[in-house]
């Protein structure tokens, strides 16, 4: 049985941009995922591609370079692109009806949580707001950095991410 990890736009961009403040944290986690390559599938929802492309274009990166890098990402054997389809939204609505946290979610949170829950995936993000809003609904969401966590209810969640992945895979993943 394969295990699923969903990478949010903030995580994908942090891997790709060596100047990103979360680059080291993202590479550390991505290396761990690659070590478990044959058992872990990385999910990239369509919305992640759209958000990442817009962000990188605004940063000034050329269209051809963005296209080249995203093709390379998609060609990794354990990475799959997940389209967003309406039936998934209906299913999530049904699961969440009566859940007040649901009302705090923004569109991107909803879409990411939707795909994550559909695949029972661990979600990686460097968006603190999304981490906070999605956590009450789907606690397998992780902010894997100690940066900018002062005053937050959570710190670097790398240990929790690895520990949960160990449980899912049934084996140790050493630091």
């Amino acid at each position, binding site marked *: 049985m394969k295990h699923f990890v969903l990478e949010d736009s903030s995580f994908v961009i942090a891997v790709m*941009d060596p100047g990103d403040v*979360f680059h*080291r944290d993202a590479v550390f986690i991505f290396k761990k995922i*690659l070590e478990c390559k044959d058992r872990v599938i990385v999910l990239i929802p369509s919305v992640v591609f759209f958000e990442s492309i817009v*962000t*990188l274009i605004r940063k*000034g990166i050329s269209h051809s370079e963005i296209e080249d890098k995203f093709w390379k990402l998609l060609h990794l054997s354990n990475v799959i692109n997940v389209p967003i389809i309406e039936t998934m939204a209906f299913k999530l609505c049904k699961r969440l009806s009566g859940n007040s946290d649901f009302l705090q979610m923004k569109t991107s949170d909803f879409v990411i949580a939707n795909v994550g829950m559909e695949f029972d995936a661990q979600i990686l993000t460097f968006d603190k*707001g999304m981490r906070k809003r999605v956590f009450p609904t789907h606690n397998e969401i992780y902010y894997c950095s100690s940066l900018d966590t002062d005053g937050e209810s959570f710190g*670097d969640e*790398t240990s929790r991410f690895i520990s949960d992945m160990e449980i899912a895979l049934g084996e140790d993943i050493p630091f």
Partner: protein
Amino acid sequence: MGSKSRIDLQKKQLEKAKSKALVGVPKVIRDLYLKVDKPKDKRSSNEILMEVRYGLGCA
């Protein structure tokens, strides 16, 4: 060992492991690296993403 000490030890081990994260990065990851020599927008990618995602002041 108490649980607090164990957590502290784990934090130290994690920090040490993360400090070496950029040593020996696999080619498959390096192939994804972008060249951002002269960014049009000098803010961090994450700041730009939050604006793209939520709009100004909404992140």
